[in-house]
């Protein structure tokens, strides 16, 4: 016997239909959980059943970016009563508004000192997330740069040859500086750097760029 777990994104509006379908198909309700996302809250509903081939399917359905300020979640306790602790928990710890819970404690399920304590993003987590995002951005920028460079080389060779054919005598003039391209390359370079330091570097870069452009103009 095997085991497989899957994650499928769904819309909040489809939740009740899905739960009804799972209930009628004889699935067991495994759990419901909340997780803080970049925007809003992710809700994950899980169902488990053994399929015809004997594999146990743990199916997780993810509702992404639920906004507690404007939306309410319909309760699934009508189909699966065992969901009541999780829905109360979601309300007490994350501030998720659940509508129609069969056993509703109205915020008194967990005796915690504040509303939605799990929805608070601590400074440590924020710092860790920003650092991870910076590293990821730096990596992406590096890759993009490498790709652009590869494409640029391939693309630059052909026109250069074509241009060189009719005017073999012409001096290879210095390519005009494209400030936008330079800026983009610089941003990619500093993507992984501490924000304060990045600001200083950016200012220095702007001054340098201006000087170079002026120097080139003067030369012409």
């Amino acid at each position: 016997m095997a085991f497989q777990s899957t994650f499928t994104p769904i819309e909040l509006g489809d939740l009740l239909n899905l739960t009804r379908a799972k209930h009628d198909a004889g699935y067991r309700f495994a759990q419901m959980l909340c997780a803080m996302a970049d925007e809003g809250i992710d809700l994950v509903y899980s169902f488990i059943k053994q399929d015809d081939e004997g594999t146990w399917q743990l199916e997780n359905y993810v509702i992404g970016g639920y906004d507690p300020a404007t939306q309410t979640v319909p309760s699934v306790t009508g189909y699966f009563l065992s969901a009541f602790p999780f829905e109360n928990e979601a309300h007490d710890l994350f501030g998720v508004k659940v509508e129609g819970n069969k056993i509703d404690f109205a915020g008194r399920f967990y005796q915690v000192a504040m509303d939605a304590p799990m929805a608070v993003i601590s400074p440590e987590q924020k710092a860790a997330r920003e650092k991870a995002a910076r590293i990821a951005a730096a990596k992406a920028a590096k890759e993009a740069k490498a790709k652009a460079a590869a494409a640029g080389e391939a693309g630059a060779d052909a026109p250069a040859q074509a241009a060189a054919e009719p005017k073999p005598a012409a001096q290879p003039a210095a390519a005009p500086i494209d400030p936008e391209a330079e800026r983009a390359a610089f941003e990619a370079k500093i993507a992984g750097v501490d924000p304060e330091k990045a600001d200083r570097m950016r200012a220095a870069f702007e001054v340098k760029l201006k000087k170079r452009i002026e120097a080139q103009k003067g030369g012409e």
Partner: protein
Amino acid sequence: MGKATVIPFGPQHPVLPEPLHLDLVVEDERVIEVIPQIGFIHRGLEKLVEKRDIHQFIYVAERICGICSFGHSLGYAETVEDLMGVEVPKRAQYLRVIWHELSRIHSHLLWMGLGADAFGFEALFMHCWRLRERILDIFEATTGGRVILSAVNIGGVNRDIEDSELYAIVDKLEGIRGEYHEICNAFVNDYSVASRLVGVGYLSQEEAEALCMVGPFARASNVAYDCRMLGRGGYGDLENFQPILSDEGDCYARVKVRAAEVEQSIDIIKELVSKIPHDGIGEKSKLTPADGAMASNVLEQPRGECYYFARGNGTKNLDRMRMRTPTSQNLAGMVKALEGCELADVPNIILTIDPCISCCER
């Protein structure tokens, strides 16, 4: 028909080892409605993933529960290994299962003691716990801890058990089996136990399935679901694993299912020891979970299926770790089983669910 009265029950109650509060709506001696309440000891352990990295969180996961502590560290480690795609050597998987089954024996013995205490059989309680001490001694000798073992890491286990020691453990368990039979004899054949438990807190198979119950509680109502059947980790190599079922659905059936599961665990350990491979115990993984990667996993704890969910964010900390413990799943079933029972049977019914409220509120 008398007037309905509300009797508060718990969180401090002689029979309850756990802070569970019930509002029992009683008509004469009969309970007609039950409103459970937990939440007195919420500790915010799931929030701690932000401060403790994936390796340190094992020690937090262990502390979710004092009885199934090994199970929680195992379930957590398996989930994070799934998340990062870490391969665990077979020997480490077998050792994990051996420890996990030992902790099931110790948990069931503890529960049987508490159950005996609940219906007032002090001597049986003492004998159960005396046997449990032997299991704890095995833990102490093999991992260095009695309850909190800290034996698992992400990618393997921390300590190996020598083959000679494994055989000694099997011998010791066979010795325990003899004494255990005498205890079981009292549980299964003594008329005082039967008179307190037979027919109490009945739940039919349909009800158990509709309420999505898990663990021995469900299996006593003939629901053939045991996560060990899923063949995760070392369980996949068992010759023939069949969940222990009973179709009686009352408190007595729950005692019998657990009593049989202890012996089943001894058999599992014996089988695994006889075919344990020698391919190392694995090393602590040096990977970090990828951003947005998700993994979910189920594991059979002594009390039933436990669900784990983990999501990475590209750092050495997890973005979210979730453990859905068996008791929170069984709360609905407990409410159902309590409806219509005698007031004097309430403690027995609650105990046969084996509630672990501290697990429920991480």
